């Protein structure tokens, strides 16, 4: 923008190129906006179109869409395209009216095309700079099936265009019908615009439906897609109040182990309280080592320490570990009727060794 605005003589002389420059910037802006917030864009477009429709309902307006932004865009892109593709055949004086002719031709020839044109305008914004072939072929993809069923005349012109790859031929043909069919054109355009509004509405409906579906599915699975991640390192230790103590499991020289339940997720965990009494030198280095190594260990055969939680006034420190139902020692001491089978011993040994390794 600033470049074209600076107005160096060379640029001014080539008015066409500067024009295209500005157009290009505008175009990319739009594209950005669209990428940024598609919904908002659709909404805006919807309101735009509604306004347009209201304009068109007023009786005597010959070219109602001249102020329309999208039309404008198409204008310019066509202008550019003609400049690049057709400059050799056509004199520059003739190009200007010709654009309108092309437009009119398309409008008059078929309303389906009109609708799809708007779609292609959207697509154009996506693909920054569409060449003539793309513009011609893309609308033909969708409406053909519809136009086949409705009107054969439009179908034929449609195909003609597709074959020619350039709208030149049809433009020449329909050149005279512009003024006579102006009224008709307005009517058709209103229809096409209303059609587009309908399509937009259906799009919105589909979107909302999808959203509702998503919500329902979330309710069904009870699994929100994004779990809340709590970073201990920045948010600090959680309090032991987050857990509901169920019962004491065991007490040893190292501390006391409780079975507890996470109040938020209802998961069972084992809470191990570190013995901190009579520590003169602050936090005991042995406990620190234990915590540090266990927090680093991530292995299926090593009991996982999930986090450290603290008591109400920092006097008690608990390690939150995954809850394992049995421990091998007590199982072997008390609970065994028969000794382990060979296969069981092998399995246990494998687990043990892979944990150590």
């Amino acid at each position, binding site marked *: 923008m600033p470049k074209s605005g600076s107005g160096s003589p060379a640029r001014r002389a080539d008015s066409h190129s500067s024009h295209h420059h500005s157009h290009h910037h505008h175009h990319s802006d739009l594209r950005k906006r669209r990428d940024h917030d598609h919904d908002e864009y659709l909404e805006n477009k919807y309101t735009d179109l509604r306004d347009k429709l209201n304009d068109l309902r007023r009786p005597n307006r010959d070219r109602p869409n001249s102020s329309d932004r999208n039309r404008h865009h198409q204008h310019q892109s066509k202008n550019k395209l003609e400049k690049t593709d057709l400059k050799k055949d056509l004199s520059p004086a003739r190009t200007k009216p010709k654009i309108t002719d092309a437009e009119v031709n398309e409008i008059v020839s078929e309303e389906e095309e009109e609708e799809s044109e708007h779609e292609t305008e959207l697509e154009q914004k996506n693909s920054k700079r569409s060449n003539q072939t793309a513009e011609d072929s893309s609308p033909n993809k969708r409406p053909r099936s519809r136009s086949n069923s409705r009107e054969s005349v439009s179908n034929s012109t449609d195909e003609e265009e597709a074959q020619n790859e350039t709208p030149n031929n049809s433009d020449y043909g329909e050149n005279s019908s512009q003024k006579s069919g102006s009224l008709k054109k307005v009517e058709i355009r209103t229809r096409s615009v209303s059609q587009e509004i309908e399509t937009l509405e259906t799009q919105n409906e589909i979107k909302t439906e999808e959203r509702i579906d998503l919500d329902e599915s979330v309710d069904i699975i009870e699994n929100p897609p994004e779990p809340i991640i*709590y970073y201990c390192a920045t948010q600090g230790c*959680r309090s032991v109040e987050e857990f509901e103590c*169920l019962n004491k499991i065991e007490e040893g020289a190292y501390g006391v182990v409780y079975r507890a339940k996470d109040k938020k997720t209802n998961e069972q965990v084992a809470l191990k309280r570190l013995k901190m009494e009579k520590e003169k030198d602050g936090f005991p280095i042995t406990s620190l080592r234990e915590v540090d190594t266990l927090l680093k260990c991530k292995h299926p055969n090593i009991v996982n320490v999930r986090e450290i939680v603290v008591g109400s006034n920092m006097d008690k420190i608990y390690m939150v570990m995954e809850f394992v139902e049995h421990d091998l020692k007590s199982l072997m001491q008390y609970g065994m009727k028969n000794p382990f089978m060979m296969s069981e011993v092998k399995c246990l040994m494998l687990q043990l060794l892979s944990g150590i390794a």
Partner: protein
Amino acid sequence: MNSRTQSSCVLTNSSTTITMPSTSDTTLKSTNIQLKVSLEVPLMTKEQLYPTPSMKDNIPFDVEFDLRLIGCELIQTAGRLLKLPQTAMATGQVLFHRFYYSKSFVKNPMEYYAMAAIFLSTKIEECPRRIRDVLNVFHHIKQVRTGKVIKPMQIDESYHIAKNQVIKAERRLLKELGFCVHVKHPHKMILIYLQAMECNQESLSQKAC
């Protein structure tokens, strides 16, 4: 629902008999919440970093910056005097900085936390020093900085207060950092580079680190 059946299963397996805690509606609803506790140290966002907790307590940014600098310098000097390896000082400084991104300088006096940071880092880096040594060294630095006559520290009431303060600060440091206190330093990489360049002299590597 699922978790309830699971827990009842567990209960039948265990020998102790406990009455099942009544599952009210709120707890059932709370099963929808998925809370994942992560132990990794995340990259902090700009929003987390810029209005620091101290700035929220009306400390200007430059003052906070100076406080951080002084704290780190204290840690460095104390580490030298305690004859610690450089990694211990570096760890202490990192912990010090991290702590003051979640707490403010107003409520947490800088000096005690500098002491706690280096005291904790000596344990993390497996070169423990006694808390008395740390206090002694800080006392010495203070005397040197203020230009007083250097006297040995008196073991009196104020000493015990200071000691308890440091122990408390250490706990809070650990709590705020979620016990994720293991710091990975780039120094190891430097050593590897030095070895790759075949100039593995002790003096050079010490300088580089």
